[in-house]
């Protein structure tokens, strides 16, 4: 179910503005890859190119290749909608649909993919997805309540349940804990470690301890200055990155000397 992604010479533009420059990296299947770097360095923008969500912004375009399972996500005949059905995403702020109940939220993506689903299958899927997101025990008695009635951390786990209910190959997480308290953060981090058994996970984080705790590989992005494009400085096993990075800039950032 999980797949690896190979990115080759990827450039991201917003209109004429070059936002991210020349990224090449391999994202391994069944592992957590963390993207770290200072604000504005293009790590979130890069993350969004992996499911073509950056195209939501008018004028955004990409040059280069992102190949998943032999298929270039940017080939002419690839529909961005199809890409997003295979590459799920969790956002910085929890965003359950306020007009839907907890159960309806979990099923939202499935109803798009195959419109008809029997009642018992739907119930099973709600339970298994919420189980996988470590939320089942907290909400099993109130599945008909609105998703917005949950706490922030619970809402974020609901969003994770919604994303994995469609069985994606890859799960992208854009600073999934930055709006959460430490206990909810811990719950999400534990969840990531469990989910990587089944999914390829890419997580953007500002929290270096979090990157060190949850990820197998870490990529460091940096930016030369305002108006300059962000670029990938280096990528390595997380333990190597945090003990003996090969680049000075990485060491400075990780040890808190700038950024």
């Amino acid at each position, binding site marked *: 179910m999980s797949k690896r992604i190979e990115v080759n010479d990827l450039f991201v533009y917003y209109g004429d503005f070059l936002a991210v420059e020349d990224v090449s990296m391999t994202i391994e299947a069944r592992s957590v890859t963390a993207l770290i770097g200072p604000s504005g360095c293009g790590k979130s923008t890069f993350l969004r190119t992996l499911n073509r*969500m950056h195209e939501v912004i008018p004028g955004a375009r990409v040059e280069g290749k992102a190949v998943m399972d032999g298929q270039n996500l940017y080939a002419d005949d690839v529909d961005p*909608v199809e890409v997003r059905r295979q590459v799920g*995403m969790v956002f910085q702020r929890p965003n359950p*649909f*306020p007009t*839907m109940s907890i159960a309806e939220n979990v099923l*939202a993506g499935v109803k798009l993919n195959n419109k008809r689903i029997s009642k018992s299958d739907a119930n099973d899927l709600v339970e298994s997805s919420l189980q996988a997101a470590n939320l089942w025990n907290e909400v099993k008695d109130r599945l008909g309540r609105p998703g*917005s009635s949950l706490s922030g951390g619970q809402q974020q786990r609901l969003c994770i349940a*919604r*994303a994995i209910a469609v069985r994606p190959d890859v799960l992208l997480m854009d600073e999934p804990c930055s709006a959460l308290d430490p206990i909810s953060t811990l719950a999400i981090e534990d969840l990531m470690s469990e989910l990587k058994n089944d999914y390829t996970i890419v997580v953007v984080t500002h929290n270096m301890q979090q990157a060190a705790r949850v990820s197998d590989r870490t990529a460091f992005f940096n930016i030369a200055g305002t108006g300059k494009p962000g670029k990938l400085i280096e990528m390595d096993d997380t333990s190597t990155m945090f003990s003996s990075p090969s680049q000075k800039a990485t060491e400075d950032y990780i040890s808190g000397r700038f950024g």
Partner: protein
Amino acid sequence: MAVLSPAKTKQNSEDEPAVKRSKGGLVGRLFHGLSAAAGLTILLTLAAVAGFLVLRAWPALTASPAELQEISWFRADSLLAYVGPLIFGTLLASVIALLVAVPLSVGIALFISHYAPRRLAQGLGYIIDLLAAIPSVVYGLWGALWLAPALNPIFEWMTSALGFIPLFAGYQPPAKNILTASIVLGVMILPIITAVAREVFLQTPRLHEEAALALGATRWEMVRMAVLPFGRSGLISASMLGLGRALGETMAVLMILSPGFLYSFFLLKPGQHQSIAANIAAKFPEASGLSVSALIATGLALFVITLAVNMFARWIISRRSEFSGAN
């Protein structure tokens, strides 16, 4: 400002007081008073209108059928029997107008907010707002002199092809029937509904739209999943604003509709329906005494209907408020 005891003032004079009273206090209270007064004005106006209607309608409300029947145009057994068909005609015209306007408005608003290129969207929004500025008498002229002849062949086809449905049976030219009047009403309320719906749709949180897109929703699925449910209560409010205007619209109906006083579902026959507002406008110039009271009594009925419609809309909105996205 704060009244401090001399001792305390002295004590505080050396170092700054911990919390200084804002200098805006007086202005703040003044503004509070002004806005409260403005709010009260609404209530007073509403009470004044309701009081006037009840007071002036009272002679007709308490008059015997025999007294009422002395009015030259009063052909009914009681006031209730007189106002009933008028209420029916008013509601029928307004409901058809809503059926015409709401789907069209939602389509236009969605196109402007989520589909059209920005420059086209702005231009289109501007044109829609212009439609709202056209006086209703102009709509009446347009409806009676242009739309009615233009609809003539369509209505003829409808009555011959669909005449087995009672709704469309018995068309007689010219098209001075309730369907023509309702279509004109629909065009009249289109701008207000579109304008409100557009604003509501534009306010859909980007987070929810992105949530739908990230799940692999197409543009239309995103609209259905995130935009429409979020805009639902706003859309109901917009429709009610439009309905309010349609219920009270006078000139256009007066100029287009050939009046009648029946409970009739023949949408294409002339001389079947009349709306309360148009009826008052038609008869008021020559009314005096009890006939004025009778007309005001029909106005009171319109007032009550409008209130009831608005309360019904609020009830619909509040029923699922915890799912509304406001929390």
